[in-house]
């Protein structure tokens, strides 16, 4: 099904949910104010329903907003978003019965930045961008150019195991099978090939650009702590100044806290204004968890959270 018809179906369903009083809020996407962007639409008003869109630029992970909204929520969820929702359910942070999940089988989200680089054009110069299966058609000055989708999708999408939502009430469109590209591991592999000191130095450099804007944490749907450890003052764990040591520790601990919760959706990396490759951390953590405990975050709402659980058979060969 094309985006257009998915969109029509979404508007119909969302409108009905609001009118019938089945939900208090609809959380979805609407057109952004900049070219080829979308922005979250959080509304109680049926008149807003026709602003809902589905297109290859629905970047945000909307599960982020669930904990802020009181009442019942109808939420648009891509595959990754739905896993974050499941993760929140596992942690008792949201109640499944309060949600109506409008699932969107997702073919991957286009990274405008990757596309601009590949097309060697700023978005202002691009007239149109359309997705056709494994290609992305870019119209520049009336001329169409084809780019391979695998090269302009976000890396997180290339690693997506579950493009069809794991949890939904209404599925908008046909289920999609995963098409995993090894490109998604490119950065992790590159790092792993380096000697340890150089890996550490790599992160030192990356985190010296960090301004501690906390966009990574705040765009993350499962960084749900009421008070983050970086903001504790008694004791003060890490200084509030943006210095690479503290920035890095913040991110290391954030990743450890999110082990078994993080679905590697890539929201943090996309939000980072300093272009720090945060997914090279989340991806690895995801794989470590999968490796050690055969646990894939956000795939089964019936499972106990990874860190609130243990098995007698858990690996312990590293312990003397």
């Amino acid at each position, binding site marked *: 099904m094309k985006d257009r018809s998915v969109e029509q179906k979404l508007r119909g369903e969302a409108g009905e949910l609001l009118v019938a009083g089945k939900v208090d809020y609809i959380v979805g996407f609407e057109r952004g104010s900049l070219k080829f962007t979308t922005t979250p639409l959080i509304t109680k008003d049926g008149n807003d329903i026709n602003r809902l869109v589905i297109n290859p630029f629905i970047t945000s992970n909307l599960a982020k907003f669930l904990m802020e909204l009181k009442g019942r929520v109808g939420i648009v969820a891509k595959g990754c978003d739905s896993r974050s929702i499941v993760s929140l359910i596992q942690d008792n942070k949201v109640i499944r019965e309060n949600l109506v999940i409008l699932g969107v089988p997702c073919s991957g989200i286009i990274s405008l930045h990757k596309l601009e680089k590949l097309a060697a054009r700023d978005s202002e110069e691009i007239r149109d961008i359309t997705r056709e299966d494994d290609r992305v058609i870019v119209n520049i000055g009336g001329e169409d150019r084809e780019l391979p989708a695998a090269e302009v999708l976000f890396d997180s999408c290339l690693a997506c195991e579950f493009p069809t939502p794991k949890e939904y009430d209404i599925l908008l469109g046909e289920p999609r099978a995963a098409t995993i590209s090894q490109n998604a591991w490119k950065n992790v592999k590159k790092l792993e090939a380096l000697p340890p000191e150089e*890996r550490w130095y*790599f992160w030192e450099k990356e985190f010296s650009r960090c301004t501690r804007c906390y966009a990574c944490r705040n765009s993350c749907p499962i960084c749900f702590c009421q008070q983050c450890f970086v903001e504790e003052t008694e004791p003060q764990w890490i200084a509030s100044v943006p210095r690479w040591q503290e920035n890095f520790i913040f991110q290391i601990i954030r990743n450890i*806290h999110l082990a078994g919760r993080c679905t590697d959706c890539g929201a943090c990396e996309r939000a980072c204004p300093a272009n720090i490759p945060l997914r090279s951390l989340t991806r*690895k*953590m995801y794989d*470590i968890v999968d490796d050690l405990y055969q646990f894939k975050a956000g795939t089964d709402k019936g499972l106990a959270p990874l*860190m609130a659980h243990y098995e007698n058979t858990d690996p312990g060969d590293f312990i*003397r």
Partner: protein
Amino acid sequence: MREESKWEPRLLGFLCRWCSYAGADLAGTSRKKYPPNLRIIRVPCSGRVDALFILKALQQGFDGVLVSGCHPGECHYQVGNYHARRRLAIIKKFLEYLGVAPQRIQAAWVSASEGGKFAEVANEITEELREVGPNKLFTDER
């Protein structure tokens, strides 16, 4: 160079009060030899040890961190050490990926009666750390 040769690995141990802390005590009273550069922080359970403790220790210049608790099945709180095991496994693998030498993150099960084992563990780790060299992870001058 002279500084280098004088360098002795500094190890920080987070020891469970119900077992390993007593084990360390026993090692001391029974005059088992173990490195003087070991600093000990007593914790209520190995499950109390947060990743932050480990990172803070490394940031403050300790060359290695040891988390030591009760043997599986013997936790005073039934399951604390099992949780510690999960957490430590993840921390260790993740930090190794980031470039921290695996020898810097250590774990052991030591009961209250295992004074000998405690001394052995501390000695082994110190030797391993000696080979890895001083921790310069968080220094600015390199």
